[in-house]
């Protein structure tokens, strides 16, 4: 650090960097002159260090906290493979199906890129659903993380729109008739429904213009999602991660630096996730897809069953649980939109379901309801499946609109631990970290987060 040109304490006159602003670079010792040179001009190194190296993370995160990272990995795969698919794809009613066949048959490595893209959609939704249910179970949406939750729900909706638009692109039978079901549902809105459907599909019928629009929508949304992920991560790093106990971090004794602790823990999750991904791509390519989508779209031949991809099945089941088309649409949209209101519907100050005996049961029932709806969406809405889809739909709304507001008042939560570090650390370690760590904290200290970087 003797070199005057590279030392972080160099006067501004010698480096040419104005002093009117506080120096953005806060790199500690151990970084070379080039890193310091760059970081004083664009603080990318110190930013990454702050957010992904020293970022203080609750020490008690379990493997359910991997799923955000897993969704990001799947999204990255989707965007990378999507760019290559876009190069070879033709967005016209006459050429789309053949261009997808050509990608599969004649384009070099096209089959593996397309198969990865298809499986990627399933993997990203699987990760997102676990991620969302984890947040619901541990109350991760509660103060001060409401905006973090809202950005996450925005991401979920964007992902759904993108997946729907993407599914239309191969122009198979399910693409066409799936688009037709959605158009029909939108048309059922009073007043604006028909004009909205016509505007979306660019005409009275689903055709060339629709395909062009959905292609542009699919492509652009992929990158907008990337932007929304940045918002989500920024919001996360403002409040810090939630944790299974649902109590706030009270000091350095409660946290571990993100690297190497959670980078190594996430790495295990990522590799396991990639193994599941690879099994899907290489050994079960037809497991989660509809074979009918390899029959070219034919407006004159309705398939016997219009089945959605599994990740839309729960919402499709809600759509069909109601005899009225408009009612089905409103409930189906409502079943997603109600999630946005969750931070304000939940009246309990306790975050984690571990300390909420009634909410815990309600949450388990919610997961069962979701899985039931998933199964119902893949079967004809008749007999037992129709009955089950109605019961599950009822519970879905009951949970969010009735149980969440009520439970806060009637439930007696279990006693919360004093801190994350205290109940788990041996006394010796807990008492040496900070003076107050061994003592019960006043309530006001709960929301404070230590800035130890």
């Amino acid at each position, binding site marked *: 650090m003797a070199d005057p040109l590279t030392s972080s304490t160099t006067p501004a006159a010698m480096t040419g960097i104005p002093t009117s602003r506080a120096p953005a670079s806060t790199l500690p010792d151990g970084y070379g002159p080039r890193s310091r040179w760059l970081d004083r001009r664009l603080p990318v190194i110190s930013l990454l260090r702050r957010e992904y190296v020293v970022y203080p993370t609750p020490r008690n995160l379990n493997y359910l906290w991997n799923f955000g990272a897993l969704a990001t990995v799947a999204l990255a795969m989707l965007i990378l493979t999507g760019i290559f698919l876009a190069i070879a794809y033709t967005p016209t009613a006459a050429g789309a199906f053949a261009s997808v066949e050509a990608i599969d*048959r004649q384009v070099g490595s096209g089959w*593996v890129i397309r198969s990865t893209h298809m499986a990627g959609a399933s993997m990203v939704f699987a990760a997102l659903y676990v991620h969302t249910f984890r947040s619901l179970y541990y109350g991760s949406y509660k103060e001060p993380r409401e905006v973090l939750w809202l950005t996450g729900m925005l991401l979920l909706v964007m992902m759904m729109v993108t997946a729907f638009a993407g599914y239309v692109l191969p122009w198979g039978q399910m693409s066409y008739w799936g688009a037709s079901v959605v158009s029909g549902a939108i048309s059922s809105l009073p007043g604006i429904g028909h004009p909205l459907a016509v505007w979306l599909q660019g005409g009275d019928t689903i055709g060339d213009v629709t395909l062009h629009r959905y292609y542009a929508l699919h492509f652009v949304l992929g990158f907008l999602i990337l932007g929304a992920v940045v918002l989500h991560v920024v919001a996360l790093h403002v409040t810090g991660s939630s944790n299974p106990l649902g109590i706030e971090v009270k000091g350095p004794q409660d946290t*571990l630096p993100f690297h190497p602790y959670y980078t190594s823990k996430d790495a295990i999750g990522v590799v396991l996730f990639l193994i599941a991904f*690879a*099994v899907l*791509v290489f050994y079960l390519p037809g497991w989660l897809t509809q074979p009918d989508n390899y029959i070219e779209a034919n407006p004159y031949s309705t398939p016997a069953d219009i089945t959605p991809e599994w990740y839309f099945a729960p919402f499709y089941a809600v759509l069909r649980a109601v005899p009225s088309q408009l009612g089905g649409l409103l409930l189906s949209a409502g079943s997603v939109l109600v999630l946005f209101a969750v931070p304000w519907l939940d009246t309990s100050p306790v975050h984690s379901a571990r300390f909420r005996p009634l909410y815990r049961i309600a949450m388990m029932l919610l997961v069962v309801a979701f899985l039931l709806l998933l199964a119902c969406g893949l079967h004809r809405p008749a007999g037992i499946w129709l009955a089950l889809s109605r019961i599950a739909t009822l519970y879905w709304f009951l949970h969010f609109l009735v149980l969440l507001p009520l439970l806060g008042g009637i439930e007696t939560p279990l006693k919360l631990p004093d801190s994350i570090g205290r109940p788990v650390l041996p006394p010796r370690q807990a008492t040496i970290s900070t003076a107050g760590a061994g003592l019960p904290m006043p309530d006001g200290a709960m929301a404070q987060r230590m800035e130890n970087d």
Partner: protein
Amino acid sequence: MRPPTHLACKSFLAAGVLAALLGGRAEAQQLQALPVPPQDWSFRGATGRFDYASVQRGFAVYSQVCASCHSLRQMTYGDLSSLGLDADQLHDIAASQPVPAGTDAAGNVVLRAATPGDHFRLPYANEAAARAANAGALPPDQSRLAGTIQGGPSFIQAYLTGFRDTPSSVTLGPGMHYNIYVPGNAIAMPDVLHDAHVRYTDGTRATTPQMAHDVSNFLAWVAQPHLEERHRLGIRVLVYLTLLLVLVAVLKRRVWASVRI
């Protein structure tokens, strides 16, 4: 009659799809389709491989029999290279097929010999021509048929050997044929495979069941041409990821060793 089984149910559906594709009209009296005999295909399972000798013979059956009515529009002649055919053979196969090459100065359609880059020649100029030649039925394209049809290659094989003389108790509509594996036992497609109908160059006897088996193998390959490559690459990826998992697990244990949770 054997009692209806799960397979019977599947083949019933399969035949329904086929009948619908072929535009066939099922008889009002729904005659029971026989269950499709299960087949032990070599390409099944995680290590499945194609029996390429059979797939190649199946190509002979396709090009000498099926191709006169059924298109294979997503395939190029060059795609056959992964069947084990060399460049000369591909060139010869393609060159024997006349494909449209625009028009001459007078507006007449000109034909030229195909090249390996060309897609398979279509048997009919358009759908109307195909229907007109087949009593109103449209022979389905076969590019993905083995994947989209219920029952898959096993159904195709059974179906091709399922044609019988129409029993006296059954009256078929005009242009329909009797097949024990389709619902209503009626289908627009005639019985096309007859013993020694196709000449096999490898000495295999071209019996009807043999040809049905070979062409079903061929159509299974056509529907999933990268199956073997997919299985091979998958093993490598999984071995790599498993080793990585071990390393990452060791790393995580070491990193967390000093942390009491």
